[in-house]
C-alpha cells in the first residue's frame, strides 16, 4: 500500500471519527458509509460494502444516549477494510472483523479520555466562563474539537497499524479451514449483535409485531431472490 493511500485512509478515518460526536454528525461515521468509501479508495468496493454492512450490524447495539460509553465503529471500519483488502483471498472478513473490533474498543476508550481532558480544560477556564468571556468560550470549544480530531487520527492510525501487523503475522499462518472459521465467527457474531441490538431498540411493546412482520417480509424476499 502506497504512502499516499495510507494518508488518504488516515484522513478519511479522522473525518469519520470527528463526525461521530463532534462535527457535524452527518453519519459518515456509520460503518455503512465509512466502509464502502474506504473500499473505493482501495479500489475494492466489495470488501468495503461487506465490512460496512457487517459493522453496521454491530453499530445497532449502540444507543448513544446521555453519557453512555460505547465502542466507536467508524475509524474501526476503515481499518477493517484496509486489513481485509490487503489479505484478500486469504483471510478476508474474519481478519477485518478482528482488526475492526479491537480498533472499535480503542476508539471507545479514546472518547472517554478526550471527555475527561475536556472536563479538565473546562474546570481550568471556569472563572472566565462564569465571567461570560466569549473569546475563552470559543477558544475552549475549538481546542476540544481539535483534540477530538487528533483522537480520531490516533485511533485510525492505530487501526491501520494493526491491519499491517495482522496481515504480516497472521496471513499465511492459518489454514483454509481456519479462514472459514474466522469468517463464520465474524458474520455470526455480527448477525447476533445486530438482532439483539435491534430487539432492544424495538422493545417488548407494540412495535415488536412490526419487527416480526418485517422479518417475515425480508425472509420472503430473500427466499424469492
Amino acid at each position, binding site marked *: 500500500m502506497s504512502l499516499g493511500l495510507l494518508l488518504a485512509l488516515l484522513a478519511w478515518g479522522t473525518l469519520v471519527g470527528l463526525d461521530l460526536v463532534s462535527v457535524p454528525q452527518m453519519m459518515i461515521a456509520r460503518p455503512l458509509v465509512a466502509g464502502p468509501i474506504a473500499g473505493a479508495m482501495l479500489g475494492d468496493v466489495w470488501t468495503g*460494502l461487506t465490512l460496512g454492512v457487517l459493522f453496521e450490524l*454491530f453499530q445497532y447495539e449502540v444507543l448513544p444516549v446521555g453519557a453512555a460509553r460505547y465502542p466507536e465503529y467508524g475509524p474501526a471500519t476503515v481499518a477493517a477494510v484496509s486489513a481485509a483488502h490487503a489479505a484478500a483471498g486469504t483471510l478476508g472478513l474474519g481478519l477485518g472483523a478482528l482488526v475492526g473490533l479491537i480498533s472499535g474498543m480503542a476508539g471507545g476508550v479514546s472518547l472517554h479520555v478526550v471527555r475527561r481532558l475536556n472536563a479538565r480544560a473546562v*474546570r481550568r477556564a471556569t472563572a472566565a466562563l462564569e465571567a*461570560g468571556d466569549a473569546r475563552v468560550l470559543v477558544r475552549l470549544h475549538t481546542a476540544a474539537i481539535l483534540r477530538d480530531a487528533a483522537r480520531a487520527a490516533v485511533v485510525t492510525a492505530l487501526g491501520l497499524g494493526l491491519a499491517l501487523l495482522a496481515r504480516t503475522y497472521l496471513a499465511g499462518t492459518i489454514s483454509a479451514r481456519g479462514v472459514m472459521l474466522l469468517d463464520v465467527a465474524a458474520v455470526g457474531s455480527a448477525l447476533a449483535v445486530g438482532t439483539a441490538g435491534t430487539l432492544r431498540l424495538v422493545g417488548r411493546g407494540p412495535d415488536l409485531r412490526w419487527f416480526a412482520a418485517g422479518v417475515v417480509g425480508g425472509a420472503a424476499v430473500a427466499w424469492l431472490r
Partner: protein
Amino acid sequence: MSAAPRARPAFGRSLLRLFTVQGSWNYERMQGVGMGVAEEPLLRDLRVAGNGAAYRAAVARGAHFFNAHPYLCGLAVGAAARAEHEGVPPEQVERLRTALCGPLGSLGDRLVWAGWLPFTSGLGLIGVALGLGFPAILGFLVVFNAGHVALRWWALRAGWTHGVRVAVALRQPVLQRATAVLGPAMAFVVGAALPLVAQYLSGGFLGWSRVALAAVAAGGFALLWWLRARLTGVRLGLALLAVATLAGWLWP
C-alpha cells in the same frame, strides 16, 4: 431591562455553530460549552444595546450544564436567547434550560436515535443487500441528512419564536406524528433488513460452514440476550474470533 429582538437575528451563524454543539462534550458540563458557543451570536444584540453586563451574564448562563439530543439543542438555544432578550429573570432562564434537557433528550432519542437513523440505515442495508451498492449508501446519506438539517433548522427557529413558551413548539402535530410513526416503521424496516443482510453476508458460506454460521448467530444472540448487562457485542465478537483462530490452528 429588555432589548427588542432584531428582526433577523444571526440564525445562520448560530445554526452553523450548532453543528459543532458536541465538540467540547465533557462529563462536567456535557454539551454546555457547545451550547454557549451556539447561543452567543444570538446574544450579541444585548451588547450592541450597550448592555455589556447583560451580554456577559447571558453568555455565562448559556455555557452551563446542558445535555439533550444534539439535533434538538437549537430549541433550547433559541428559547434561552429569546428569553434573555425579553429580560426574563436569570433564575427562570436557568430553570428553562434545565427543564428542557430531559424532554429534548427523550424526544430526540426517540425521533432520531431510535427512529429516523435506524430506519434510514435499515433502508440502506436493504439497498446494499439487494445489490444497489453505492447508490444505496448515497441515498441513506441524502435522506437521513435532509431530515437531520431540517430538524436542526426548525428547532432553532421554533425556540426563538416561542421563547419560554417553547412547549407550544413541541406540540407540533408533525413532530408528534413523526415520533408515533417512526417507531413501527423502524421496527419493520430493520426487521426486513436482517434476513436480507444475513443472505448477503452468508453468500460465500457453503456446506458445514453455513450450518456453523446459523449456530454461531443463534448461540451468540442467546448469550447476548441472557447476559445483557455483562456481555457486549464487541466482547462476543472478539471471543468468537479468538476461539475461531485457536480452532483454526488446532484443526488445520
